[in-house]
């Protein structure tokens, strides 16, 4: 598998921990968390139809780090992200973004949180079709009634490489370009943390690589915090750290992952006996 170039010396073999408790303890030690989940439970439905999506998940996401959340379908990775981002409520436990406790906020509070402290990149339907690329990028700031830092705005535009496309509407942009616009929109407000939900899910591998490179650069060069949900080992390899979920629990973690180590871990997760043994 061909990996995109990485800065020299940055390549490290990921350390795989097998004890869940160790992971929690390790994560807890890290200071300056941009987002934090403490013993988060999420239960849907009741009685027979009850589904437990998250079972006491605790995790911290360090500032200036690019974290990927991985896991098989139904592992609860999307639910965890939704809870962290204030899009969904938790059944038990607490979630915090920076110094704001998300748990218990009302709709207005959540809206303000999303507006001021969180950026989003979704798999699709990321842009408003009626607005131009530039208007889409500036939309969260316009909604908040804030002006972007002009120098930062120029930097973002140049980084995503869309300067000549700013006046175009989404329909006139390719999928990769659209997703880069979405990235720029998330970045321009300098949120506490950006949540990306399968950002490359709808893209071909080349466009996907562009977007992922861009995300990683914004972490490396500008200290942005990004939490990305993905099921693609190649995408996860761009992250500084990968957290693995299975059955609503964090089961494993990789620091400085490569596509191969991620794939290996995934394989092990598919056969739980080996992981636990």
């Amino acid at each position, binding site marked *: 598998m061909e990996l995109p170039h990485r800065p020299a010396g940055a390549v490290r073999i990921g350390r795989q921990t097998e004890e869940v408790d160790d992971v929690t303890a390790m994560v807890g030690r890290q200071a300056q968390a941009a987002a934090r989940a403490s013993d988060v439970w999420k239960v849907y439905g009741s009685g027979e139809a009850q589904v437990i999506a998250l079972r006491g998940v605790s995790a911290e996401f360090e500032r200036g780090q690019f974290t990927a959340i991985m896991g098989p379908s139904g592992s609860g990775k999307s639910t965890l992200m939704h809870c962290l981002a204030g899009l969904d409520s938790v059944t038990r436990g607490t979630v915090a973004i920076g110094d704001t406790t998300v748990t218990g906020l009302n709709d207005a509070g959540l809206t303000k949180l999303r507006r*001021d402290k969180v950026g*989003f990149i979704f798999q699709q339907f990321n842009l408003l079709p009626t607005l131009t690329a530039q208007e889409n990028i500036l*939309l969260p700031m316009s909604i908040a009634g804030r002006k972007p830092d002009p120098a930062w705005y120029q930097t973002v535009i140049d980084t995503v490489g869309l300067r000549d496309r700013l006046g175009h509407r989404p329909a006139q942009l390719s999928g990769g370009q659209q997703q880069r616009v979405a990235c720029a929109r998330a970045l321009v407000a300098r949120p506490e943390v950006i949540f990306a939900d399968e950002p490359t899910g709808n893209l071909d591998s080349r466009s996907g690589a562009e977007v992922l490179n861009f995300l990683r650069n914004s972490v490396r060069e500008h200290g942005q915090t990004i939490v990305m949900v993905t099921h693609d080992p190649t995408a996860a390899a761009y992250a500084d750290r990968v957290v693995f979920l299975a059955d609503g629990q964090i089961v494993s973690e990789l620091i400085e992952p490569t596509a191969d180590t991620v794939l290996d871990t995934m394989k092990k997760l598919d056969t739980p006996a080996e992981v636990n043994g």
Partner: protein
Amino acid sequence: MIRATLKSLLARKLRLFLSGLAVVLGVMFVSGAFVLTDTLGRTFDAIFADAYEGVDVNVAAKPKIAVSEMEGEQTAAPLPAATVDKVRAVPGVATATGVVAADGARLIGSNGKAVASFGPPQLGENWTGESEQLRLREGHEPRADDEIVINQGLATAGKVKLGDRVGVLTPLEPKQDFTIVGIFGYSGGRDSIGGSNEIMFTTPTAQRLMLGEPNAFNSVTVKAAGGVTDESLRDAVAAAVGDGYVVKTGEQLSSEAAQGFKEALSFFNRILLGFAAVALLVGTFLILNTFSIIVAQRTRELALMRAVGASRRQVIGSVVLEAIAVGLIASVFGLAAGIGIGALLAWAFGNLAGGLTLAGIGVPAAAVIGAFAVGLVITVVAALLPALRASRIPPIAAMQDVATPDRPLTRITVAGALVTAVGAALLFLGLNGNAGGNTLATILGGVLFAFIGVALLTPLISRPVVSLLGAIFAWSVPGKLGRLNSGRNPRRTAITAAALMVGIALVTGVTVILDSAKGSISALAKDTIKAELVIAGSQSGPRPPSFDPAVLDKAAALPGVQLVDGEYGDMAMVNGQRTWVAASSNVAALERIFGAKAAAGDISRLGPDQMLFSSDTAKSRGVSVGSTVNVQLSRGEARSYTVSGIYQSSQFTNPVVLPPQAARDFAIPQPIQGFLQLAPGTRVADVQPQVERLLADSPEVSVADRDAFIKQQTGSLDGLLQMIQILLALAIVIAVLGIVNTLALSVLERTRELGLLRAIGLRRAQTMRMITVEAVVISVFGALLGVVVGSGLGAAVVRALKDEGINDLILPWGQIGVMLGLAAIIGVVAAVLPAIRAARINVLGAIAHE
């Protein structure tokens, strides 16, 4: 396929309900119209059957002038008492009674005002005794010349009771006082027959006051002896009295009278059907839009059906089936609502007409057939276009992202331009009188085509106009988003706005026409009429209010009064043609008060055998000064007049003017308007109270200064305008439903987008504001279109009426402003539910991918 259709139908109950509501309202008007006319028709059947129940055969002198039921009561020519004896002598006649019964006996109620009628006659009759139908409830029959009996309905309306001394106005003599010695009612506990007011005098008094001839009657009521059929008796009586008489059975008379009323009722029918057409036109837009949106939303579903083997025909079928289901359900509800509204209107009509006893509410077959035909046809026709579009969805669309490419507007614009041109051409033809006998149909067709054409052009217009309108709101982010949303689907915005356009355009058009008419007439009247004071009353029924002619002489004698003119009028036969004729108590007024100019001969004086023509009438009748003209008035024999002068036709001139002596033979031989010209330097306020005192015994009329008079005369236009506006408001209500519908569907369609916006920080209130701006932009756009189209239509009609004296085009700016403001409010109101729905969207549910 059918099951799949019905399931998807049930899944979209609300939006189909909203579009169905438009059909319901249209169908309601259609069936309501039929129910109303049917119910009233049978009511009149019953009334006239009652009125003639005691009559086996009736003998009347041939009327001089035929008058239809809606124009008022027939002025029956008197027949001598000898005729009664002649009829009585016919074998088979049990009884023959001479009857005096003429319209125009008005009781002055306890409030000092004449009891008014809104249509039914006010009969002055001779007392001919009790009968099976007519029974005295209190008191006794009139025995002295100053005694009367009245029906209970009149006693109630005038708030008078047995023993009261009351004034009665009659056509031929000034007000006289009578004592009420009896109050009667009819069988079945009824207080009147069909709301008629009846005053019964002794026979000589009735003859003097109502006929002006002693020993004369209007008709002879004949009862047949046992074993004699009405028909054979009728023929025997007819043979005995000879020519010059109309002899009919009671049955004949009642069915003829009822027939006359039913013809008049068809007028109501047409008005209601007209509004039904407007409601249905607007409804068609609404249904078209709803089905278009539904088809667009179901693109994937329909494509999937095609992919798994459904044929095009089946896809069309599924959409049309849905339309049929909606149409059927809407028709059922519309029919039910129509029966309700028909009953309500019949009840209102009955009350207005003075307490008609209504026949039971009936649902004629026409109402049911009309309801279902209209409801089904409209719905299916409106759904046909979307159905065709649905059938063109390629199966591959199931696999692709739902991308509805912006189709070019060229074809629709060309079609719109063509249809608008056809509409304009038809309007031009109709308004310039080049359409042959179908002027009205041509004009209506032109209006319809113009509406559809403009609706087709609307998508093109909507882009610049909507973005311009939206710019007003673009200062805030929600406002900007709302503005962009309203511009994103020009067709949908256009149809929604066009639905509102129709109602607003009609209101504006009618207002322009009536305001212009009112303004022109007022301006002209102020310029032309040189009378400072005017005596007139407001007319409520077919019979205009009149006053004692003696007032004219007394007014002329008042200090400061320079010229007095009393105007009489009637329908007469002039050279065998029905013509409105007038008589002036002072012919000089024609020039000095009404500013008429002589075109030929002398119009300043008129001998007893001379008459004047207006230039238009003279031209069309081919008469000139010196011609001899035969005139038959309501009373008396036909006689000849010599044309002594011809005046220029104007707004304020009558077609024909007869000498004052002729007014004695008018149906109403009393002046109906009086004009007073004051000497220079005389204050109106000094004279007015004195004239008021003169009118003490003529409570139907009052004296007003000229401006008040003009206002009063044009006031009827205000009432008409209000009525039309209220009925057209319904079309606007339907259009509002359309806006609600479109927005609700758009919100549904944009769930994910709204979720995204909420995810990146749009507050609930901002979301609602965004939807509201979209609604306001659409509705103000529709209102703007309506105002422009309506003003255009109104101006075209006003221009066409230039010859009728409507010279001023008056655009009701105030009302236009109100309507635009109202449109903004409509937008806000229409947005409430969709906005709440949008604000409540579950962010997670909206963005979570499939």
